[in-house]
């Protein structure tokens, strides 16, 4: 008898525990965030802009390609004294539970990055179990982060996706920008021998127009988002922007360049030969002599000649060797320029300090404290570049050579 009661009791208990998850969330109850923007308002409060996915309007295929009537994302902003407060305050505006797991873009406005620094912001993102630290960070250049978040985009319907994919593609194909995640930037912020670089994103055109659905109904958008420059940080604060070749120099030294193109002058004609780097390896090594550090950068690149606008005999191995030399010098100059610029800014974005630390931990302990302000700006950096040309495309010589012969 007693056993039977016991049995019943256990049954009831298990009924209680087996009923399901503690805090279950069904999909229709969630507001899925795709991107987050951080600004500051006049009162000095954080403004957090959330980009929510409108599931009905994204799934275009089901509705005959039209993709629904509304925009694919909705944006709500909220303010607070810190990130968490701004986050909770958003619930006064959004009907569903804010769901962070799918957010993959964090936009920080240039203003915040310059004045406050980004270190105050990141902790909230790292600590939250729902947020993934592989989220990409970009800096909204010259605009509010909210403008980047609200701008509608074509091809990729979700702006956060567009920004991420643009970064991935341009990092792979052109090498002037890099994709930096929250996790990476935190570890760089922690490090004493390296400073942070984050890609800037700019909204081109009218931000009001960018919000409207008409924007993506044009063939050429009124407001577009594009990667523009690298933001250079010092102790967590944005101090300068690097553009074009300087930016690529930074990416190159960080060994993140995969493919890119380099132009050299030939026979007094400017940018006459275009060389496409197909793969490259960059090695940075440190050397300490008499307590004085020196850095050696060794770049080895290989690629093809993809364009010539002067008659040049590409079948001659000697000419190829000369072009290789010229390319080496050109790349070397580019790297040196960006090193000089960084040294002027007194910001060791290349992680030379870390390199010294790895090879010479004892010497590093001595120079650690005044690395950025004293040692780094006067650091001797040797750059050695070897560029190899492997192929010249489907043609050997250009038709320009033939034209010259016939004339």
């Amino acid at each position, binding site marked *: 008898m007693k056993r039977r009661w016991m049995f019943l009791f256990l049954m009831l208990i298990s009924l209680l525990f087996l009923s399901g998850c503690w805090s279950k969330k069904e999909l229709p109850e969630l507001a899925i965030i795709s991107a987050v923007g951080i600004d500051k308002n006049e009162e000095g409060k954080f403004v957090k802009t959330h980009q929510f996915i409108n599931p009905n309007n994204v799934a275009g295929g089901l509705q005959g390609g039209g993709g629904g009537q509304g925009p694919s994302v909705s944006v709500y902003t909220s303010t607070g004294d810190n990130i968490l407060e701004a986050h909770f305050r958003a619930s006064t505006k959004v009907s569903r539970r804010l769901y962070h797991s799918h957010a993959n873009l964090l936009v920080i406005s240039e203003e915040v990055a310059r004045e406050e620094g980004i270190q105050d912001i990141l902790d909230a993102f790292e600590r939250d179990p729902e947020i993934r630290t592989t989220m990409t960070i970009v800096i909204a250049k010259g605009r509010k982060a909210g403008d980047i978040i609200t701008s509608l985009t074509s091809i990729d319907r979700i702006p956060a996706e567009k920004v991420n994919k643009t970064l991935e593609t341009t990092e792979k194909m052109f090498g002037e920008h890099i994709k930096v995640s929250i996790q990476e930037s935190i570890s760089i912020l922690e490090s004493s021998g390296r400073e942070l670089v984050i890609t800037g994103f700019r909204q081109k055109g009218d931000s009001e127009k960018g919000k409207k659905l008409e924007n993506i109904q044009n063939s050429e958008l009124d407001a577009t988002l594009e990667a523009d420059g690298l933001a250079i940080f010092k102790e967590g604060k944005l101090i300068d922007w690097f553009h074009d070749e300087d930016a690529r120099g930074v990416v190159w030294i960080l060994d993140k360049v995969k493919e890119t193109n380099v132009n050299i002058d030939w026979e007094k004609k400017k940018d006459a030969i275009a060389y496409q780097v197909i793969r490259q390896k960059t090695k940075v090594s440190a050397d300490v002599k008499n307590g004085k550090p020196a850095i050696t950068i060794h770049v*080895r690149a*290989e690629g093809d000649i993809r364009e010539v606008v002067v008659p040049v005999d590409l079948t001659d191995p000697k000419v190829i060797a000369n072009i290789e030399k010229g390319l080496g010098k050109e790349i070397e100059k580019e790297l040196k320029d960006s090193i000089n610029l960084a040294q002027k800014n007194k910001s060791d974005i290349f992680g030379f300090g870390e390199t010294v630390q790895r090879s010479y931990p004892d010497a590093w302990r001595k120079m650690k404290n005044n690395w950025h302000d004293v040692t780094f700006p006067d650091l001797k950096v040797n750059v050695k570049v070897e560029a190899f040309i492997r192929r010249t495309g489907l043609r050997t010589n250009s038709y320009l050579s033939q034209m010259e012969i016939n004339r």
Partner: protein
Amino acid sequence: MKILGIALLILVVLISFSLYVDVTFLHVSLTNSIKNVLNPFIVMDSVELFIFVLFLFFLVAPSLTSYIRKRKKGSNNEKKQQQP
């Protein structure tokens, strides 16, 4: 071992031949032509490097195993001889 020797002999002869061609006919200096021989192997992806090492392994492995087997056999024979 012999197999490996044959392969290395052919390789060495041909590499020096290609150096010779570079120096005499394309008028490249010896150091540069040595660099030319080596530089395609320098800029390698990790996958490429892996395949390369794999091939080298296949090159060496049979000779190595046969060598080890021979040594084992040799030592076994010695033991057998010692036993009686």
